[in-house]
């Protein structure tokens, strides 16, 4: 693992004085500083990176956050904001000499406006809680990251989270309308709102996915969509990866945008089937899981069309879920892919690159050749519709050199993603983990421009410094998500 330290503020901090200063701003029980109190905050969903912060504070109001920001400026102490801490790239990793600020207490749904189809919420509201709160109006919030029962909307905005259905419904950036943001200087920016196309620069887009570097998000207005009338789920088995890849391209080329379109290769199918018993064909080279939604008659027609395309591409076996239970079962295998792989290998290493879909056979072929070269097995699960790969490199950290081989292998996969016109991260974010790969993705001039954008919001560099954008001299090694013994920090969460 890459252990280059993140930039830190001056070492000689008077911690007791800081704690008292914070306790003058917040009730005592919301300022945590003892070792055992800090431990739960030492990592986010990427547990390979751990660091205890100097203190943790849990503000409950915008005024309290403003006060903490003022203190951060006066003391020149960096501040890391955190939602539920389910992120997979170490974006909420604390800084040794920094304050970790949890926004989990800001969890009120402030307003639901069914006619304008919006909800105004605080950042600590859980993703799924929004859809639950508006369900009575026949509406929902579309982005559905796999951690949606736990992750917060504030974190979703900070990471521009996706989800299985983003092929049709877009990412977080496409589904939020407004933000209230505190700058490092403590000023409130009201960005966007219920009206479309806010005047001036598109700060809504800039803040979305900015990983806590530009401001503290204290309120979000989200766009709500009507629930689709009908949902169909199909599963098709293929005897070659190329056939499955071609079927994906032809489906979309035929003008059909599935709500979700997922790909698994043989290693992933076997692992998932052994674990979840979803009824997947264990001998298939690849399967596609396709979800279609919309109007009843339209969907019936699309199901026929998709089945025809799949058969034309030599699908050996097509299943259509007949009821809700069968839909859940077909999805269960895909959703269990990560834990299933965790069960067959002591450790795995999860990548998150995105590639243009038509390069899939070539990229998977190369991953297969490297798999032999490195003597490390790979299971591929993949959001096929939008080209977002999650190759899981299987290794055993107890074997000398295995971790290093896995890291090198992973690094080559990400480089390949960039080389074929893709990106190093489709949805997990850069955080702490992919700082090095950013140097492959971007040149020095782009990185310098990113630093200037950061300075435009936070000239003193107090908000989550050292994350998301690497310094120009840092371009050597690669890191990625390490999972030991199949244990993610949130074992109850689905990861796909």
């Amino acid at each position, binding site marked *: 693992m890459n252990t280059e330290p993140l930039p830190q503020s001056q070492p000689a901090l008077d911690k007791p004085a800081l704690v008292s200063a914070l306790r003058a701003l917040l009730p005592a029980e919301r300022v945590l500083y003892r070792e055992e109190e800090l431990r739960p905050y030492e990592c986010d969903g990427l547990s390979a990176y751990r660091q205890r912060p100097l203190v943790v504070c849990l503000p409950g109001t915008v005024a309290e956050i403003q006060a903490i920001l003022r203190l951060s400026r006066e003391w020149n102490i960096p501040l890391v904001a955190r939602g539920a801490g389910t992120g997979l790239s170490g974006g909420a990793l604390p800084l040794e000499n920094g304050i970790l600020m949890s926004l989990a207490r800001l969890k009120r749904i402030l307003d639901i406006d069914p006619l304008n189809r919006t909800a105004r919420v605080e950042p600590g509201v859980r993703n799924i809680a929004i859809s639950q709160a508006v369900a009575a109006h026949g509406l929902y919030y579309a982005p559905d990251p796999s951690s949606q029962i736990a992750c917060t909307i504030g974190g979703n905005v900070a990471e521009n989270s996706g989800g299985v259905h983003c092929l049709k419904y877009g990412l977080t950036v496409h589904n939020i309308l407004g933000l209230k943001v505190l700058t490092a200087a403590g000023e409130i920016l009201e960005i966007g709102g219920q009206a479309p196309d806010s005047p001036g*620069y598109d*700060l809504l887009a800039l803040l979305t996915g900015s990983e806590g570097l530009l401001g503290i998000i204290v309120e979000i207005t989200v766009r709500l969509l009507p629930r689709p009338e009908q949902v169909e789920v199909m599963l098709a088995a293929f005897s070659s990866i190329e056939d499955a890849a071609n079927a994906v391209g032809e489906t979309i080329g035929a003008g059909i945008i599935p709500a979700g379109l997922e790909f698994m290769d043989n290693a992933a199918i076997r692992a998932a089937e052994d674990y979840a018993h979803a009824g997947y064909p264990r001998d298939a080279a690849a399967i596609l899981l396709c979800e279609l939604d919309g109007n009843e*008659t339209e969907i019936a027609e699309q199901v026929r069309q998709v089945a025809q395309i799949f058969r034309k591409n030599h699908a050996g076996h097509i299943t259509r879920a007949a009821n809700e239970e069968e839909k859940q079962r077909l999805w269960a295998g895909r959703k269990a892919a990560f834990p299933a792989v965790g069960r067959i290998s002591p450790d795995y290493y999860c990548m998150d690159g995105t590639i*243009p879909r038509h390069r899939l056979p070539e990229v998977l072929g190369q991953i297969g050749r490297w798999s032999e070269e490195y003597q490390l097995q790979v299971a591929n699960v993949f959001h096929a519709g939008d080209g977002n790969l999650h190759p899981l490199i299987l290794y055993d950290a107890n074997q000398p050199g295995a971790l290093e081989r896995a890291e090198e292998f992973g690094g080559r996969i990400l480089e390949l993603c960039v080389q074929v*016109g893709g990106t190093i991260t489709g949805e997990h974010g850069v955080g702490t983990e992919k700082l090095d790969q950013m140097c492959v993705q971007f040149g020095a001039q782009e990185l310098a421009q990113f630093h200037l954008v950061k300075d435009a919001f936070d000239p003193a560099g107090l908000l989550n410094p050292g994350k998301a954008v690497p310094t120009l001299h840092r371009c050597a090694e690669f890191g990625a998500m390490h999972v030991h013994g199949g244990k993610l920090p949130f074992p109850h969460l689905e990861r796909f």
Partner: protein
Amino acid sequence: MNAPVNDLNDHSEVLRHRVTEAIGTHTPLCICGGGSKAFYGRRAEGTPLSVTEHRGVINHEPTELILTARCGTPLSEIESLLGRHEQMLPFEPPHFGPQATLGGAVACGLSGPRRPWSGAVRDYVLGIRCINGKGEILAFGGEVVKNVAGFDASRLMTGALGTLGIILDISLKILPRPREERTLAFEMDAARAIEQLNQWAASALPLSAASHDGARLCIRLSGAPAAVASAHKRLGGETLPDGGRHWEDLREHRHDFFQEDEPLWRLALPPATPPLPINGECLMEWDGGQRWVKTALQAGIVREITARHGGHATLFRGGDRAGDIFHPLPPAMATIHKNLKLAFDPHGIFNPGRLYAEL
């Protein structure tokens, strides 16, 4: 399938050279595309720099739903290429003239009738190659839909009216063209239309456009023939025979409403906002979120009323083009805007004053 690329049409280096010269001589530049939207924004200043020679589709991958083209590529060329593949630009950009270019459409950030249901220009911008105010050619985003590496500078440049840099190449997500479109008309007043439309928008209907001219609500249904037919059956209404023409006239401001000399305001509002007490003719679009108003009322009054209802007002055509065109920004927002302008264009050479006087 890659469209043929003519490298003679790649003027990146020529343009970069012009920027470097302008930096050296402290000469502000006025970036010009086809000129179809030259009226938009505050009065342009600076030495004209034409970017129309930097043109051509660089990549169109129909099954990937991706298109990359140079800024000077005419919108009409892109739309006819996509049309041959039964695809479209989902944000239905207004052209406002046959010379309209992709770069101009993206820099102005204007979206057409489909916007509330399919998204705005910025929702489809995946990547941009640009020249910043140091004369550097930078690439942000890319040709993939899911990409969270780095700050989203591509979307930041969308709608920035060229004040942050020269957009060279743009990668867009595109969508299949709906197989059927049908326009329905209903007689009703504005207040009723706004409420009805937002109720429809909150249910699973294949809506793709709406307009209300004061007496008649028109809606467009798009999608598979079966979905359009069943929605029509559910909603009723009278079929408008030349529906396609209606939406194109609206998008291009060729509708009769736009044929007068009074200042034209564009009000962006929470869609369900009831009709506003502004003295002047109003044409409502989208789900009610975009309203065109012709009025000689003072700018401050129009803005105050719009802001009171949670919206913002743009002096779209006419009026004082040297004054505020876009809704003035609160001080904290204005500061961030100035900082960002400096971050991208430290010498202030790109389209100074076109968006706001101080940018």
